[in-house]
């Protein structure tokens, strides 16, 4: 039986968790692997934490969801709290240790059935004028989470896991690159942690997904690829 790599990503609605899960699964599929991606959706979004389950394998893939993740990536302080059940002794745990404030989700989107398909931007009120709200295919799928705050409470980080890696993707995006590519840094980190796919396959998938935008603005390609490489290196050096 072929090994199945199980990846769970969690973040605030609008952090782009579902987008990168989709890119990851599509890249795996293009590589000829079996891949399965399922978002959580519906009123379970109450509280605004969005979880994506991705599984990649050379063989068959079983149930669409799982309990223990091989790679667990909670991207906000609240996501850290909400994903404890997915951490186990074989889990590589990657969290964002940037000192940010999680976005407050307005009550009026609680219970929306399509939270992650067309999310209202939870930080619309805090939007930076120079930031586009979209990152993927022209849809408002991500927005910045650059508001300073206390970050993750270290006491919430599980200790019984295989490895804990802190990745200040938010700070990195804000200071070195651009807040828009926050989730692409995470994507690079996932590849480094799993080596489940070559990094070039992700670049190909990004090219497919954002090709038109890249053509219109080649700088966008550079920025995305740089973010991907940066996330990759960061984790490689930590592992």
């Amino acid at each position, binding site marked *: *039986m072929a090994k*199945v790599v199980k990846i769970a990503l969690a973040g605030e609605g609008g952090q782009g968790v579902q987008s990168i899960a*989709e890119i990851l*699964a*599509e890249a795996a*599929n*293009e590589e000829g692997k*079996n*891949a*399965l*991606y*399922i*978002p*959580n*959706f*519906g*009123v*379970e979004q109450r509280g605004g934490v969005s979880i994506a389950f991705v599984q990649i394998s050379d063989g*068959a*893939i*079983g*149930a*669409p*969801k*799982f*309990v*223990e993740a091989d790679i667990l990536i909670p991207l906000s302080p609240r996501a850290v709290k909400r994903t404890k059940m997915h951490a186990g002794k074989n889990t590589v745990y990657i969290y964002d240790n940037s000192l940010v404030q999680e976005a407050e989700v307005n009550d009026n989107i609680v219970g929306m*059935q399509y939270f992650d398909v067309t999310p209202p931007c939870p930080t619309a009120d805090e939007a930076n004028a120079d930031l586009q709200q979209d990152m993927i295919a022209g849809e408002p799928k991500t927005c910045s989470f650059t508001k300073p705050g206390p970050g993750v409470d270290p006491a919430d980080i599980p200790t019984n896991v295989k490895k804990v890696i802190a990745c200040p993707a938010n700070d990195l995006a804000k200071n070195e690159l651009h807040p828009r590519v926050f989730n692409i840094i995470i994507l690079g980190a996932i590849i480094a942690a799993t080596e489940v796919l070559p990094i070039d396959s992700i670049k190909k998938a990004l090219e*497919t997904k954002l090709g038109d935008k890249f053509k219109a603005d080649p700088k966008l390609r550079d920025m995305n690829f740089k973010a991907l490489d940066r996330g990759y290196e960061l984790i490689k050096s930590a592992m």
Partner: protein
Amino acid sequence: MAEVSLQGEQRVFMTGNEVVAWAAVAAKVDIMYGYPITPQNEIMHYWTRLAPKYGKRFLQTEDEISAGFTMLGGVMTGRKAFTATAGPGNVLMQESCVMAEMMRLPAVYVIQQRGGPSTATVIYAQQETTLTCFGGNGEGHRIVYSTATHQELFDYTIKAFNAAWTYRFPSFVLGDGYQAKMREPLTIYDAESKGVKLVPTEPMVGEFKPGKQFKHLRNTYNTEEELYEVVMANQRDWDAMAPKVVEWYEKDCQDADVVFVCHGVVSRAAMGALDELRAQGKKVGLFRPITVRPFPEKQLADAVKNAKKVLVAESAYGQLLKMVQVAICGGKAEIVPMLRPGIGITTEELVEEYNKL
């Protein structure tokens, strides 16, 4: 990724709802009738985008009752038609379904089960199994395919149209919210160039040919005896059909001490558990009804005849269990239920349940 098409065969990566829309195109469906309800909405979304390119039609109705009955109108004129729904919508669709049973109309329903009872969740469940098999005031004269993978979702949607038009019983594809929303690879294809014959349609009314015999179709009868004859004729047809359409999957049952019985997406968890436990040398097997109606009763009884225990796992409280109890009543295996209404079952949970036995 290259543009998706049905030219030859193409490996694609998409959500289950998109798969259903493509399968309907592959089955050469003429018209879809629908009403929005999560988690099936994207079937309509994709269909309305695809349909004009293939000269097909769509009608958004005022409710699921209307979606069901407009579909019946469509099939009566000899057009291939279907609808899709979930949860409370499935409840409303049952009214049209019993008319289809009585009048032998080739209606096709795609159900993406959500939580129940009532509005419950928009996410996932297997709580519409009994409803889909036996809803309405009748005898459950219908065919229900319970799918587990996107490939099956494609294959069995095409098959459901063929079964409906061959046997003239309403046919269901019983999916769920997980299958609706998840993405995985599958191969889509042009049915006929792959050797899958599409059963031709024929109008029941509204055909214009000289000297035609006018049809008077009804579902109301005056006497008990008259009704009895009609229902029994349908029952005989259904009984004769059942062995031809019944489908199941079994693995490693003959030497198994414990046989998992699941249907739909839960059988994926069972496949994972089976691999894991067999690797540890545990004697486990899996039996999965693909048609939950007609239910593969004899095949299940045979598969578990040597087993000590039968672990029935479902995302409902005893809907599959009852079917299993009927099928293996009198057998020696002990039935152990794992009943999780409205919530997913993972491989890990199934293994844990096995270890408790």
